[in-house]
């Protein structure tokens, strides 16, 4: 089996970072429960509101790092969806998340342990730098939407990994 690659490492690095920050800042919902961070683009019935989902959507590397090099200027598009229960909560979570992401976060490489697959070993191997905030907007899907989609917020940004 392949070791976890860059994409999976990146997604898990974001999740680890946000989990720690949620705990540090005590980001909780109305019932005083910590807001969960999920990886993935698809909701499951076991997801509860509010929550933050994150996933890597695409890699954009159209240009070479420098003339004559086969190295690419690799940039990754990360999508954050905030599913809130009401508008105030959506705005607060969006504002908190934007502030937290601004300075970037650590990039980890994960090594799986066959004996304990739920807890892979992680090693710091760089810093994820924010390149561009693509958008930071309320997701408007019309009037006739489910409660899950009623107070959604989308933050998308491109990042690059530096050592």
């Amino acid at each position: 089996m392949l070791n976890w690659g860059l994409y999976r490492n990146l997604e898990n690095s974001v999740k680890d970072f946000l989990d720690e920050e949620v705990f540090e800042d005590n980001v909780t919902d109305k019932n005083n429960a910590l807001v969960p961070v999920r990886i993935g683009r698809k909701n499951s019935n076991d997801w509860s509101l509010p929550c933050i989902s994150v996933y890597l959507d695409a890699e954009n590397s159209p240009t070479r790092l420098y003339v004559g090099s086969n190295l690419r200027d690799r940039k990754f598009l990360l999508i954050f969806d905030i599913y809130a229960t009401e508008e105030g909560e959506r705005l607060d979570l969006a504002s908190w998340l934007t502030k937290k992401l601004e300075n970037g976060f650590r990039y980890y490489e994960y090594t799986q342990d066959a004996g304990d697959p739920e807890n892979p070993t992680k090693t710091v191997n760089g810093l994820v730098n924010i390149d561009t905030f693509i958008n930071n907007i309320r997701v408007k899907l019309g009037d006739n939407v489910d409660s899950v989609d009623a107070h959604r917020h989308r933050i998308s940004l491109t990042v690059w990994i530096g050592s």
Partner: protein
Amino acid sequence: MKIRVAIREKTGKSFRVEERRRVEEASELDCERLARECEKIIGETITAKAKKSTGYLASFFYAEKIPYGWGVGRIEELDSKAKYWAHQNWGSEGIGANWAHTLPKGHWVNGRWVEDKSGYFAVPKTPIPAMNYIESTLATMDAIIPQILSEKRI
């Protein structure tokens, strides 16, 4: 003694006026080139990411002149002719579906769910997945804008 110098180009026009006209023309041309490139990229992105692309949604993302520049994808037109553009970009539980993905009473018309009180309940197999074609296009544009602007004009 004050000396006033007026710089004029060969034909005798004011340099400032002439330079301003030249910069406006160049920026107009650059805006158009970027809009046309954006149209191409968003079309390719939708086609590549859609499960069964018919080209219908992509056809509404075309470059057009707007006041003070160029634009791609007019929201009023998308809202009236390709109503599901937002659901396809951001993904959703389904149009009016609840947490368990049950749709309100209605029936299917050409693959679309139309609400109808005399219809029946249905549960779509999956929520509408987010295609993120707008974000993907903007990320690609962000990376290639310097490249496009540095290209020589023909």
